[in-house]
């Protein structure tokens, strides 16, 4: 029998019912990879890293870390976990991630022109499959050049970079001059900033060309493979004096335009592997303040059987580490010299800013970071795609400046299909890799070596090399000694 005074349960539990009875935290997205025998490197959503033992990693995931432990505090401050006291982490992570992806909205910045495929050097590793300097039919015409410049100014990028590749671009200086003058005129008209670089062996550098570079703010980049004997062995010309010509050119640019206006890169051959210190010393001797250590790319003559180019990735990494150690040693003694690829990787590891380097983008940087105009008007989404075409495989050719429109080329299936398959956030192996935020996709290289643009990463030389580089650099940063200070200075 009802009394009319039934006890009614309140609609909500009291606040105290929800108060935490035990400490709780939630994980934020992160990846991890083994750094060495005992340590792991963890990278969060925006690329911040944390190095720790496996026990801490397991403790983090299994929720056994206590809030008073130093690991907990570090992981919380670096946004690997979230608790009731740092809800703002989500906002920060989203902002950092957006900043890192910003280059995507800039679209194509780098535009490469090949004024000629002719060259006076006959490097056995020539990846561009150069033609002899007297050959005919390998020079860019004015009509192609004009359309190339117009194509470049269609890019939405606020800053453009115009780079001359070869062959030896100065062998067709007339068309190079025409392209630069047209570019400078259009950049004034459009209010666009254009940085211009000529990649040259400097054999044909003259006072006229130096005047031209000074007047039009053109920088120069060259190849210097090391001391005289090594350089001339790698890069012979008819008179066996390519070293003398290149060094003379570097000196003239330094004295006339300043040391910041010339840079150089080392192509590593088998002959280079046991000379890391001698190669570095040569750069110091020439007064250069930067160098770029690169392995041989598997294109053009470099892919011919029997050329002395082959070495393993492990051998190249060993060479790189020795050279880098020596460069750091010289820096500590007051010598100013920076290894540029190291500096680029450090920027990717330590800063929230994206880099436009074509090989380290996700999706791949082909087309959306760089475009190349070949001497015959062929348009390619990277220099390597052009190199592949010179070997007879035109799979990545986007079209021709003389016959195809900007829209048709930049929205072609050739480009868009490749891009959609190269997001490392979704590629097997890359998706779980602790170095994913720093790395990228190189579809042309994987296609060349494995016949597939995604590639099988456990057998990928690109993957092995970059894993080795990231492990080494993070290992150096973790030492937190004077060499770490040198690396940090290279960020500027």
């Amino acid at each position, binding site marked *: 029998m009802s009394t009319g005074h039934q006890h009614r349960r309140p609609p909500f539990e009291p606040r105290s019912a929800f108060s935490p009875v035990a400490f709780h935290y939630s994980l934020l*997205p992160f*990846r*991890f990879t083994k750094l060495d025998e005992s340590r792991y490197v963890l990278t969060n959503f925006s690329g911040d890293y944390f190095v720790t033992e496996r026990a801490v990693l397991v403790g983090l995931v299994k929720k056994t870390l206590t809030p008073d432990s130093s690991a907990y505090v570090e992981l919380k401050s670096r946004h690997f976990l979230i608790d009731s006291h740092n809800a703002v982490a989500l906002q920060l992570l989203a902002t950092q991630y957006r900043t890192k*992806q910003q280059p995507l909205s800039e679209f194509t910045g780098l535009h490469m022109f090949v004024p000629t495929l002719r060259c006076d050097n006959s490097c056995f590793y020539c990846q561009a499959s150069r033609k002899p300097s007297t050959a005919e039919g390998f020079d860019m015409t004015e009509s192609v050049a004009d359309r190339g410049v117009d194509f470049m100014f269609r890019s939405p990028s606020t800053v453009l970079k115009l780079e001359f590749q070869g062959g030896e671009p100065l062998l067709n200086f007339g068309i190079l001059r025409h392209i630069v003058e047209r570019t400078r005129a259009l950049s004034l008209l459009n209010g666009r900033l254009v940085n211009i670089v000529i990649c040259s062996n400097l054999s044909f550098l003259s006072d006229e060309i130096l005047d031209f570079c000074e007047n039009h703010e053109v920088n120069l980049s060259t190849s210097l493979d090391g001391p005289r004997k090594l350089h001339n062995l790698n890069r012979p010309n008819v008179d066996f004096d390519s070293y003398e010509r290149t060094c003379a050119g570097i000196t003239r640019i330094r004295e006339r335009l300043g040391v910041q206006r010339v840079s150089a890169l080392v192509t590593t051959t088998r002959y280079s592997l046991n000379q890391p210190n001698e190669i570095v010393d040569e750069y110091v001797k020439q007064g250069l303040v930067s160098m770029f250590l690169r392995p041989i790319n598997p294109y053009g003559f470099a892919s011919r059987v029997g050329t002395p180019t082959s070495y393993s990735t492990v051998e190249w990494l060993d060479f790189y580490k020795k050279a880098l150690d020596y460069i750091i040693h010289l820096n500590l003694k007051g010598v100013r010299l920076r290894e540029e690829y190291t500096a680029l990787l450090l920027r990717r590891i330590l800063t929230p800013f994206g880099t436009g380097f074509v090989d380290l983008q996700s999706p791949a940087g082909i087309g959306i970071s760089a475009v190349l105009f070949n001497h015959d008007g062929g348009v390619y989404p990277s220099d390597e795609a052009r190199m592949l075409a010179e070997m007879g495989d035109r799979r990545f050719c986007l079209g021709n400046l003389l016959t195809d429109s900007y829209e*048709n080329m*930049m929205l072609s299936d050739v480009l868009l299909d490749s891009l959609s398959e190269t997001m490392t956030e979704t590629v097997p192996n890359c998706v779980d890799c602790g170095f994913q935020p720093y790395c990228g996709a190189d579809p042309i290289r994987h296609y060349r070596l494995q016949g597939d643009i995604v590639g*099988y990463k*456990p057998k990928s030389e690109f993957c092995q090399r970059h894993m080795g580089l990231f492990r080494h650099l993070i290992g150096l940063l973790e030492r937190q000694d004077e060499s770490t200070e040198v690396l940090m200075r290279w960020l500027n």
Partner: protein
Amino acid sequence: MENMCRTADGSLVVKFDRHVYRLSAIKKAAYKYGGLFHILIENADDFIAATLKPTAACQAADVAAGEFCNEVLDQDLREDIAAETSGIRDLLLAHAFSKTSLIDLDLETEDYEPALKIRGTAKPAE
């Protein structure tokens, strides 16, 4: 190791307790070790067996097989992380790209031509 044995053709067979390990974690580890082993995965009632047949690239099969087992543990841990954070990851991505200008809203009309949709590209002069 009781759960690891060698067959007559030199392959190593590793048994994983299915109550401890996820099949997906074993498959991911197998993908990663495909350069060192030809791998066959079999599903039994209580365990999952992975047969690892060394390739020519495999210098020390026993060591590599041990590392394969550790990789399965790591992959299992990654599955835990993914299960807990996939929702937050989607939220972060949505939030990050909600404030970009990757897509030009002026071109978001019903009759826009896809060929013109990339920011900054314009129709060439007639």
